[in-house]
């Protein structure tokens, strides 16, 4: 019983982490069709933002304030990744719309550049981030079942980001323009929407969310120049399985993969579990090539 409860929670937690790393990609790849290989590096930027803010708090602010660094780090992670995303879009990506293979190579190169840049600035070894003390420990459900606060926090954060994205995309004017441009660019342009600006902002938001993910991942994972590579494959897997272009699909994909992964890993080994998950995904995509939730849109044909 205790084990089942723990594993159920673990599955949910793994799903939430997968969703967090995939949400940004659901926008840049899902909505905009940019095969964004630099997505992992935006996660890295978010992680290093947390490290930076922590350093500043440690060196120049009173000890008692330290725990307050984390919310600030989340904000900075979003802002920094947003800004770099905006820069990247303006300088590079916008010349590559509609050329998926070029954008794939270009963003992959950008990813390598960002990795080496991080290595130059922060050094090659991993850096340590101390998580705020209010996230230490866990919720004791019963003997042997502890839900760590950090994992609960990530669950809540994912729910929040998902809600914010939903409100932005489906309930705001800016979101409506975004959807219009992604679904039918020419028609949107005819109606007076500045597609250039919408593209730039959309890409930047996707990058910003990746930054938030990176900041959250410092709680449970490593922080180093190459951490993006640990997550990029999972992120693409979630978006593709969920159905490119659908937010709900991404959420469902993450839940499916996270639960299956935990289940298989428990039943076999970590390596074999991953293989089984991949097999399931391949089999599923054979059956439904468009993923869990297919978008019916003309833009996909073009």
């Amino acid at each position, binding site marked *: 019983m205790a084990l089942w409860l723990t594993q159920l929670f673990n599955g949910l937690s793994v799903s939430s982490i997968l969703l967090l790393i995939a949400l940004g990609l659901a926008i840049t790849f899902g909505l905009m069709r940019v095969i964004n290989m630099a997505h992992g590096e935006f996660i890295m930027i978010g992680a290093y933002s947390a490290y930076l803010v922590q350093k500043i708090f440690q060196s120049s602010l009173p000890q008692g304030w330290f725990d307050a660094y984390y919310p600030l780090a989340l904000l900075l992670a979003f802002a920094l990744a947003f800004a770099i995303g905006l820069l990247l879009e303006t300088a590079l990506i916008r010349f590559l719309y509609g050329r998926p*293979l070029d954008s794939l*190579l270009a963003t992959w190169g950008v990813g390598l550049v960002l990795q080496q840049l991080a290595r130059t600035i922060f*050094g*090659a*070894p991993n850096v340590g981030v101390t998580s705020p003390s209010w996230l230490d420990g866990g919720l004791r459900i019963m003997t042997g079942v502890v839900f760590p606060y950090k994992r609960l926090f990530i669950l809540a954060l994912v729910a929040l980001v998902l809600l914010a994205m939903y409100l932005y995309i489906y309930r705001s004017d800016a979101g409506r323009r975004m959807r219009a441009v992604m679904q039918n660019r020419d028609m949107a342009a005819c109606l007076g929407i500045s597609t250039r600006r919408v593209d730039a902002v959309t890409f930047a938001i996707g990058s910003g969310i990746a930054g938030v993910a990176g900041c959250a991942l410092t709680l*449970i*994972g490593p*922080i180093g120049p190459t951490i993006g*590579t640990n997550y990029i494959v999972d992120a693409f897997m979630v978006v593709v399985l969920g159905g490119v272009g659908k937010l709900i699909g991404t959420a469902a994909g993450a839940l499916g993969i996270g639960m299956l992964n935990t289940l298989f890993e428990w039943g076999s080994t*970590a390596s074999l579990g991953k293989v089984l998950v991949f097999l399931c995904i391949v089999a599923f995509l054979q059956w439904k090539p468009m993923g869990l939730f297919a978008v019916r849109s003309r833009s996909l044909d073009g």
Partner: protein
Amino acid sequence: MRRRGWLKRWIVPFALCLTLSACGGSNNEGGASPSSPEPSSPPASPSATASASGEASPPASESGGAVKVGIIHSLSGTMAISEVSVRDAELLAIEELNAKGGVLGKKIEPVVEDGASDWPTFAEKARKLLSEDKVATVFGGWTSASRKAMLPVFEELNGLLWYPVQYEGMEMSPNIFYTGATTNQQIVPAVDWLLENKGKKVYLLGSDYVFPQTANKIIKAQLKAKGGELAGEEYTPLGHTDYSTIIAKIQAAKPDVVFNTLNGDSNVAFFKQLKDAGISSKDLTTLSVSIAEEEARGIGPEFLAGHLVAWNYYQTTDTPENKTFVDSFKKKYGADRVTDDPIEAGYVAVYLWAAAAEKAGSFDVAKVKEAAKGIEFNAPEGKVTIDGDNQHIYKTVRIGELQADGQIKELWNSGSPVKPDPYLKTYDWAAGLGG
């Protein structure tokens, strides 16, 4: 149709890139740090038994008053995390030797190559160092994969490689000197110590590649022979970052000890999540063989406090040579830098080679190898001796406990340097393991 051709043109380089990155993404075996080379003062003298006999027919590696040596480490890619610091230590040793007049009256001129965390690149650069630069010797490598890639090159061109990292044993190339620990200088004594002090029920956790699997094969044979009990065995892919399920499995198995051969980033995730699950070093003993001071910094010492490690050297090791070594390392590269086992082994390698060349009176590979037999050196870790039979070195084994400040406190040591035995020939239970 036009689109087709365009697609084909791009798919090939991309597939190539993916293959490269896939290779680069594997194998972290521990760690180390960044660099900013600046000249420094000369401390730490090698008290090597050297006797010059001067007859040196000048090989091509000696140009004018200098002798070229190669350094090959990953300065980019995933392994840069570990190898950059080893390169730093090797450069420091070279600088110190040069300040004292070099070797055989010649200045040492390092030729640094980047292996880029890619094993074929290691082989290619090694070939370049040997056949184009005509270096007298090469220091480098970290992962077993990189060593295995370079080995045939060194044997073919009769070069000399000094390999500075603890490894899984079962190898003895006539062209390689191994200055890191082999299994009987790290893993085997660590398991013995655990069985004696911490309990019989051992859980094996490692990354899924050659070093952990070979190490665990040895450990399982040892457990069987010494009355230990295997509580479970688990491998995770390199770069694996979610350990919640593994931790649940460990909790269910209730072992006395977890023997950890995880590598690189996975260690960070494992220890962070272990602490979050409410398991401290008091509840569960773990002993790691890939976490040294450098990695401890990246994981966050607060997650590691109280956990155990096994190495041959710690920054806190109390010898006069170590004090000078740590001081000059920090002076050259920054006060926030730390030294650790592979860093020290890289540093020692340079001194051992220099001592062997002095003794041989030549840079000739065969002569240096012959002269190297039995050379002693007062290294930061204490006295080390090159074993003439297998070209490994005698090293003192040390079990340590990680402290909250990221340093390691020694709990136990073997008292005297342990004779290297890469094939574990002197251990009855290990019969049949060798390959």
